[in-house]
């Protein structure tokens, strides 16, 4: 066993260093003095005893790290040093409905405790803990443990919990994060149905409720979107990734460049009865631009948009909230139909316009969206 170091000295994180020793020695340097000394040492002791490790020197330098962070850093260090990892039963979590609102999905870098801990307070419909692009290569191993323990130990309120995995490290990623029972897995850079089958095969039998969200971010992916959408019953939405796609197309990122691809993705999703979710808006300070783009993609049929800063959540929810006029119209339509049904008529008319089944469906959707946003 050589000397191993895991974690960062950032706020809310800790650095765990282990070296071989003659017996079990735990050394703690805590920002809070002795306020949590016994607590943290007990926590560490328990992990070491659980894994049967007796000869080790472990130094924990904590800078406001919560229990789940300390645990994750120790577990990652032990795996790195000794190649051992103790698998735990997956935690219990209530599955979410297939058509749950997914107007916003907040991406949270998977190795950043300061961002992970409060991720549930912003009220996004989904949280995506990211193991992929926002995590530097040398932190990938540590991130897996952090995301797993965050999922196991923290309460993220009403947000649906997802993890974006690495396409070339699927097995390792799944082995850890499934212990945290995320409600869904985001699969990046999906190009065809084979990509989905590969992951489907790796899912254990007990994971029946876990959903998939393929992210389509290449020209080939867009062309194959219809087959991807139907590749697994787990798929509840197709997500659109603009950055890589723009690169793939060789164009510049603009509405025009991406218009066809967005349309193709919406078509493929809706033809399979699943949701279409748009890409993120990169400029976090440009609320006006965010609103404009969100209105456009909602009009195209998208059901939600990616979020990279909590400030983007309220404007997007706002754009997906029907206006007072829309709500009034929808209520009038439903009322007219109810009255027509009382009279035994299948079709009603309101201010000279015919109301039939598709109109009724649209009105009901508006009212359900409005209900989600507490405007009625």
């Amino acid at each position: 066993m050589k000397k191993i170091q895991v974690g960062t000295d950032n706020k809310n994180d800790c650095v765990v260093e282990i070296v071989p020793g003659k017996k079990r020695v735990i050394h703690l340097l805590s920002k809070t003095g002795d306020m949590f000394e016994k607590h943290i040492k007990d926590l560490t002791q328990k992990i070491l005893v659980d894994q049967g490790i007796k000869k080790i020197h472990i130094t924990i330098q904590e800078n406001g790290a919560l229990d789940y962070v300390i645990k994750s850093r120790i577990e990652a260090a032990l795996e790195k040093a000794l190649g051992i990892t103790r698998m735990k039963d997956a935690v219990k979590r209530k599955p979410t409905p297939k058509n749950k609102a997914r107007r916003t999905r907040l991406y949270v870098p998977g190795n950043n405790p300061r961002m992970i801990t409060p991720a549930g307070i912003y009220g996004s419909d989904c949280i995506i803990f990211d193991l992929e692009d926002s995590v530097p290569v040398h932190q990938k191993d540590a991130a897996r443990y952090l995301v797993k323990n965050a999922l196991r130990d923290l309460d993220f309120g009403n947000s649906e919990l997802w993890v974006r995995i690495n396409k070339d490290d699927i097995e390792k990623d799944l082995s850890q994060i499934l212990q945290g029972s995320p409600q869904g897995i985001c699969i990046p850079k999906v190009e065809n149905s084979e990509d989905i089958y590969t992951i489907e095969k790796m899912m254990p039998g007990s994971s029946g409720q876990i959903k998939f969200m393929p992210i389509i971010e290449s020209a080939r992916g867009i062309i194959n979107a219809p087959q991807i959408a139907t590749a697994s019953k787990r798929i509840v939405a197709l997500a659109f990734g603009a950055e890589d796609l723009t690169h793939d197309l060789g164009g510049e990122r603009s509405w025009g460049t991406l218009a066809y691809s967005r349309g193709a993705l919406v078509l493929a999703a809706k033809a399979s009865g699943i949701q279409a979710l748009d890409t993120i808006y990169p400029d976090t300070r440009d609320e006006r631009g965010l609103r404009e783009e969100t209105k456009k993609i909602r009009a195209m049929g998208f059901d939600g948009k990616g979020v990279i800063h909590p400030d983007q959540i309220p404007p997007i929810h706002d754009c997906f909230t029907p206006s007072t006029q829309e709500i009034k119209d929808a209520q009038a339509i439903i009322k007219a139909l109810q009255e027509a049904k009382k009279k035994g008529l299948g079709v009603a008319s309101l201010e000279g316009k015919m109301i039939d089944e598709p109109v009724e469906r649209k009105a009901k959707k508006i009212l359900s969206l409005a209900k989600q946003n507490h405007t009625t």
Partner: protein
Amino acid sequence: MKNKVGRDLPPQIGTRKIRGYRGAFAIKPIPTKASLPTRCMYPGESKLCSSLDDAIKKSGLCNGGTISFHHHLRNGDRVINRVIDRIAKMGIRDICLVPSALFPVHKPLIDHIKKGVITQIQGSLNGPLGAFISQGKKLEEPVVLRSHGGRARAIAAGEVTIDVAFIAAPIADDYGNCNGSLGDSAFGAMGFPIVDSLYAHTVVIITDNLQPYPVTPISIPQTRVDYVVCIDSIGDPQRIKTGTMEITRSPARLLMAKNVVRLLDESGVLRDGFSFQAGAGGTSLAVTKFLHDHMKKKNITGGFAMGGITGYVVNMLEDGSINRILDAQSFDLSAVESIRNNPFHQEVSHIMFGDPHTGGCVVNRQDACFLGATEVDLDFNVNVNTHSDGVLLHGIGGHQDAAAGSDITVILAPLLRGRVPVIREKVTTVTTPGDTVDVIATEYGMAINPLRDDIIKRVKGKLPIRDITDLYKFAQGMTGTPRKVEFTDDIVAVIEYRDGTVLDTVRKVKKG
């Protein structure tokens, strides 16, 4: 003897007989206050002194005397250290110091405590002096901490008799007329020294900017002044802002601030005539900014803002979002400029701000205030004085006054500071009693005091409201239970309530 917030108090501390806290408005004052000193000054006589030594000598200060200072120059103050140095050199000892507050810049006073020049302190301690006192370097009597309003009350009631008030002023004439808003060392409102100048037996104005008679506007008039002395510099105006003056950038704290504005909106107080007090902490500044945005959007014109004034409040006055500013201390240079130029930016004393035993203080008219905390507890008691390690590090400020007076008192407290949970079963030190605190706003939701049924009814279902015990358990689930700090029996400080009763004591920390 247990007081109303459940703290055990001895019947006597030092020479002081203790009356415990009985409720925010339970104490009625005795009918008369300290009498004002008389003075005489005949034509042809001069108040001007040749040096600080000359002024101290003429003031008649002797061993055992009580002297006061203000902290409007905050961490940029150059007067307190200098005056005490001169006093020490002149061989005067046994001084009782009554500052409105002391800052890290006043660390050299520790030496004077060790040498017996200073043997008593009645005032707020921020930083190294607090830490020194907490280690049990005991003065002859424990330090007495009072709120701004409470300090004004104690002076007016004659519970504190100031022999000499040394008052730093950035502009003065040779007869002592002065204000705080002109000159290179301008600091704005003179809320504290207006009080001291009324009741102190001798008043010395210390300026670095002597101007021809009469200096106007007049914050402290010549009628209360005995001596004037001019020195090279009273302070560094760039350092009068201390603590956080930048708006928070943490998304979690910004969310907290937004929710507070929603709470005020839903609870019905955010309408024309709305009045509030905001502080200078990063989250408090965010509340002020979001309030401003909201009021502009909804076309609401506020009545007044009380402060602790910052540039963020000045912006509200300047675009008509509020009608008046009442200012007892100016927190930044933009506030200083405003009080100098804008007739609707009114200076007030700390008697008017928060003395409970007057014909009514400004806090009584505040719809809302937003205050900080180092800890809060399940009874909504707030601690701003000691850190969770038990060390005395901050003064009370206007905390008790604003909380008692305002209709809705909001405490802005993150659920976790690093891994330290802010909600405790019992706070280490009670600074402000829970019966005057209405809302604890955290990033994980807001807890409303069950005493405020009316607010709960109005906002339930519309805002993230959580039971305080839930929030407490939620935090401890992530951090574990922190070890309790151990104290000795030595009382190093007394936390006085604004009415003169005792809320709590601070004891010497036991070394681990």
